Structures are given as structure tokens and as C-alpha cells.
């Protein structure tokens, strides 16, 4: 137990050193990719809590992210930039005078997303399976449409530009590490076990005294909290957001990460968030003309991921990790091959 704490500390220290040097020496393109990896880790974990650990098939993630991204952006935009953005209709008071530091803005973004999740979850979480998916999908579209039409609060379809690029590796990786610790601690706690019980068998869970409503809403709100924070990080990384960013495609991207990584595995989500984010950049050449004289097919890159998702769902349903998790004991056990006679693996 103690030994593992030392290993974890060492790993964190190594990550710290890596971030320090990466921040100094890598170019902005690579930094952007690394930031996205960490942010998608946060987003993936938040969705996996809802879909993978509690078994609620929710497709409303882009909605929570939009709430988070807009909250953070509105709170961190300098007053002058706000005036420049809102040239069609002036921004309502008191938002036009408020400028907050990044951290409290992010936290409020999470809290607001969680409140929205609570409000939407209370009626919708009675539904199961496909019906829940449709209802949450509809909800995220509603959020998007509302944001498109509230000109005096969100600047509508014009979006927000000139958001301070506060998100750097420290913020993104820092948030990712905190999220990982909280998620791991949560799912291994009594509440996490209750979530998993609901995923395994709702009727049995309820008969064991677990209030389905309370725990579903709890999981939904905690997931939305981190989705809001992830959205906030993303907005302040991009520098510009508009409602179209938060279409179903955004939810699909995160769904891809958690399905490929393994529904119900924190480790799988982290690995998969990095692989998919990096691969999306790496496969960019597919969108450009590859064979001479044949016009380019923009979007071919995403076809690769769609096919990958189909293959996983058809033949490899547990994804990369299934519900398994990383542990130091397993990690070193993997390298330390025991002799076959003692039950070691080949």
C-alpha cells in the first residue's frame, strides 16, 4: 500500500517534470494536441461515470460542456473584449462588468453544469436505455438552440471571440490529474459501488435499499460537473466558441473515447483519450488529396473512427480495457515474469 503511494508520487513528479519541459520547449501545435489529450481525458472520465459506471445511456454531454464553456468564457472575458463581441445587442448587466480569475470561473462552470444536469436529470432519469439516450440528446440540442437565441447573454450564433487563452499544460494536466484522483476515489467508495450496482441490475439494486433516483441524479450531476469544467478548459484553449461547436458530434467524439477505452474503466478512458486525440491529428492527411487527380475527401479521417467504433462494438465489445484498471502490482507483475510452474503467464 505504502509502496504504491511512493510509485504514484514518483509518477506524478515525472509528469510534473514532463509538463515543465514540454511547456518550455514544444511548439504550439504539439502543445495544443497535448492540451486536447488532457481535456478529453477529463471529458471522457466524466462521461464514463454516467455511461460506463452507472449504466445510464446519456448523450447529453455536449450540452453540459456548452454550459461550462460559456460560463467560463463569460466570466474570464475582459470587459473591452466583451463590448467588442456584443455589437448586435449589448450584454446584460451584471455580466458586462464581471471579470473573474480562471479557477473560480471553472468551478462555477462545473457547478452550473451540475445544476443543469440536476434539473434535466430529475424528470429524464426515470427513462431507461434508448429512451434516456433520446431525451438527453434532445436536451443537449435544446441547450444549443437556447444559446443560439439568447443574443444578450451568449451573443447568439456569432459566438464569443477573444477568450483569453488561459488553458495551458499546467491547467489541463492539473485538472486531468485531479479528475482522475476524484473519479478513482469515487468509484471505489460505497457510492461508486452503488452506481455499479445500478448498472448491473436496477431491480436488485433497488431491493438492496439503493435509491435509484438519488444515485442516478448524483452520478449525472457529478459527471456534468466535470463535463462543465472540461468545456471551460476547452473554450479557453480555443479562444473562440460558438453554439455550433456543441453539436452531437462533440458528444460522439467523447462516446468514441469511452467505448474504445472500455465502458467502466478509468485507465481505458485515459489511454483512449490520448490515442484518439493524437490519431485525429495524425490522420489529418486523409482529408487532403492523397492520390493525384482524385479530389480530396474532407471528413475521410472521421470515417476511420466510425469504422473503428463499428468494429469495436461488433467484435470487441469490452473495448481496450473492459472494466479492468491499472494498478502498480499488476504493472510490475507484468514485467516480473514468474516461472510457469508457479502460475506465471507465458
Amino acid at each position, binding site marked *: 500500500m505504502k509502496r504504491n503511494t511512493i510509485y504514484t508520487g514518483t509518477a506524478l513528479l515525472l509528469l510534473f517534470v514532463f509538463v515543465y519541459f514540454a511547456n518550455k520547449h514544444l511548439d504550439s501545435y504539439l502543445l495544443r494536441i497535448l492540451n486536447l489529450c488532457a481535456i478529453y481525458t477529463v471529458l471522457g472520465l466524466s462521461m464514463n461515470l454516467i455511461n460506463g459506471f452507472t449504466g445510464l445511456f446519456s448523450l447529453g454531454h455536449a450540452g453540459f460542456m456548452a454550459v461550462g464553456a460559456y460560463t467560463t468564457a463569460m466570466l474570464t472575458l475582459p470587459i473591452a473584449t466583451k463590448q467588442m463581441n456584443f455589437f448586435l445587442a449589448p450584454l446584460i448587466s451584471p455580466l458586462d462588468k464581471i471579470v473573474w480569475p480562471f479557477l473560480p470561473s471553472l468551478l462555477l462552470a462545473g457547478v452550473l453544469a451540475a445544476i443543469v444536469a440536476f434539473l434535466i436529470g430529475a424528470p429524464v432519469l426515470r427513462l431507461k436505455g434508448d429512451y434516456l439516450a433520446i431525451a438527453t440528446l434532445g436536451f443537449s440540442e435544446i441547450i444549443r438552440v437556447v444559446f443560439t437565441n439568447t443574443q444578450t447573454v451568449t451573443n447568439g450564433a456569432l459566438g464569443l471571440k477573444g477568450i483569453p487563452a488561459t488553458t495551458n499544460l499546467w491547467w489541463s494536466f492539473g485538472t486531468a490529474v485531479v479528475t482522475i484522483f476524484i473519479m478513482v476515489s469515487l468509484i471505489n467508495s460505497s457510492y461508486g459501488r452503488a452506481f455499479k450496482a445500478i448498472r448491473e441490475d436496477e431491480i436488485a439494486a433497488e*431491493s438492496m*435499499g439503493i*435509491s435509484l433516483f438519488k444515485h442516478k441524479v448524483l452520478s449525472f450531476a457529478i459527471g456534468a460537473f466535470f463535463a462543465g469544467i472540461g468545456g471551460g478548459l476547452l473554450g479557453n484553449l480555443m479562444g473562440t466558441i460558438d453554439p455550433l461547436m456543441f453539436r452531437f458530434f462533440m458528444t460522439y467524439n467523447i462516446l468514441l473515447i469511452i467505448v474504445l477505452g472500455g465502458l467502466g474503466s478509468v485507465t481505458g478512458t485515459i489511454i483512449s483519450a490520448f490515442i484518439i486525440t493524437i490519431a485525429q491529428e495524425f490522420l489529418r492527411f486523409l482529408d487532403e488529396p492523397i492520390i493525384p487527380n482524385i479530389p480530396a475527401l474532407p471528413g475521410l479521417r472521421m470515417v476511420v473512427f466510425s469504422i473503428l467504433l463499428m468494429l469495436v462494438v461488433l467484435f470487441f465489445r469490452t473495448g481496450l480495457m473492459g472494466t479492468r484498471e491499472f494498478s502498480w502490482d499488476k504493472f510490475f507483475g507484468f514485467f516480473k515474469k514468474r516461472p510457469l510452474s508457479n502460475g506465471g503467464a507465458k
Partner: protein
Amino acid sequence: MMNVMRTDNITMQFGGLTAVKDFNLELNKGEIVALIGPNGAGKTTAFNMITGVYTPTGGKVLLNQKSTVDGKDVYNEKDITGLRPDQITKLGIARTFQNIRLFKDLSVLDNVLIANHLRISSNVFESIFKLPRYKREEKQMVEKSMNLLEKVGLADSRYEKSSSLPYGQQRRLEIARALATDPGILLLDEPAAGMNPKESDDLTIFIKRIRDEFDLTVFLIEHHMQVVMGISNRIYVLDYGITIAKGNPYEIQNNQRVIEAYLGVDEDA
């Protein structure tokens, strides 16, 4: 003998079909009571009404609760009709299922730990940040669950997936899980289903043992007459949703209507 629970004319109608009609059950402390009847007689429906899975379309489920007022034990009946299953479990009625409903992908220990969750007083923040109260509760939960697993003889397989256990042990795990909710009344839905005579004999002894050890009142549905007759203080017989007989095993065995319900009536006679 003291009454712990009773039902007052509970009725369950599904559209035009009356699955159970005017069922009056009375459970006394420490008794083992069986509910028998041919397939489709409404036994599980009766169970589901008591445990809150269904809300009876008529009648009341009444739980006799003990409370202490001025140092004296006071009993008063609480109407639990229409409460949710989790609320009813909290009040001390636990159950098992006809088709085993374990949390299949989780370990044997986790299955029992989950049933402790309903009594937790730490909130989710205390649980995430492992504050002292949560740590203390978690330790108690693990100790209690291990204790239960030892009593049902499953302590050695605590880290195994629950679905990997043999059938008989899965049944025992389900009972252990129900016991972890600290019930006063235990409802068992066909505990001996799919068991051979040797296993059902063991089960009979096991149910009597846990009744004494955990101070329980047991209400069970069972088809194995060997088990039912060997274990029950009293028996209720349902046929097409109607209570056709009740009494001790001897009375039931010699009841003409029960024999007819099970064997059929000679139409020509």
C-alpha cells in the same frame, strides 16, 4: 407471539386480470411461513406487492414497528403500501429473487458491501475525500460483510466474480446480501429452485440457522414440498390469486382443496 407484519386484503389487478385477490398474510416474530401454489397462482406477485415492486391496487401492507418511548417498547403499525422497494428495504424487509439477481460482474465481497450502502451516513464528499467518518464506516462495512460471508461459507471466494460461483453458492450469496441490509423480515423467492435433494436439505438447515442467528422472521415461496413441510410453521396456499388454505403443514397436506389445486379435479366424478 408477536405480529411483525400483516397484509390487509391486498389485491393486484393487471388490467382485467386479478393476479392476487384479498390476500391476508400475518407474520409472527421468529416464524418461518411458506407460500405455495401451482404455477401462475400469484405467489411472486404477492411478494412484489409486499416489497414495493408493485403497488397493490387494493388493500394495505402494514409493518409493525418497535420504537422506544420513555424506556418502554411501543409497537405501532406503519402503512408501507406503495413505498418504493428501497424504502421498504430500509424499514427492514429484505428479499431474494426467483431468478438469481446478483451483480454479476462484481466480486462476491462487493455484492455484499453494496447491500450495506443503505445504512451509510457519510455523504458523497466524505466518501470521495476519505474523511474519518467514511473511513470508519467503510471499515465497519467490510468487517460486517466478511463476517456474513464467513457464515455462509463464501469467505474464501470473496474476490471472485459472483457469476463464477456454482449455482448453490450464488443462492447463498444472495441470501448473505439480503442479510447485509439488516432485515427483520426475510423474503425468499424459491430458494431451493434447481437444487438436488441433498442441497435442499442443507438449505433447510441453513435457513433455520440464519433465522435463529439473525433473529429473523422468514417468509418464503417454495415448490419443493420436502423443504416446505420440513421448515414451515405455517403455510398459505394460493390458487389463481385466491387464498384457498392456510394452516400448519399437517393441515395443508390433508386439505382437500389443496390436493385438488395441485392434482386437478376428476371432472367425471
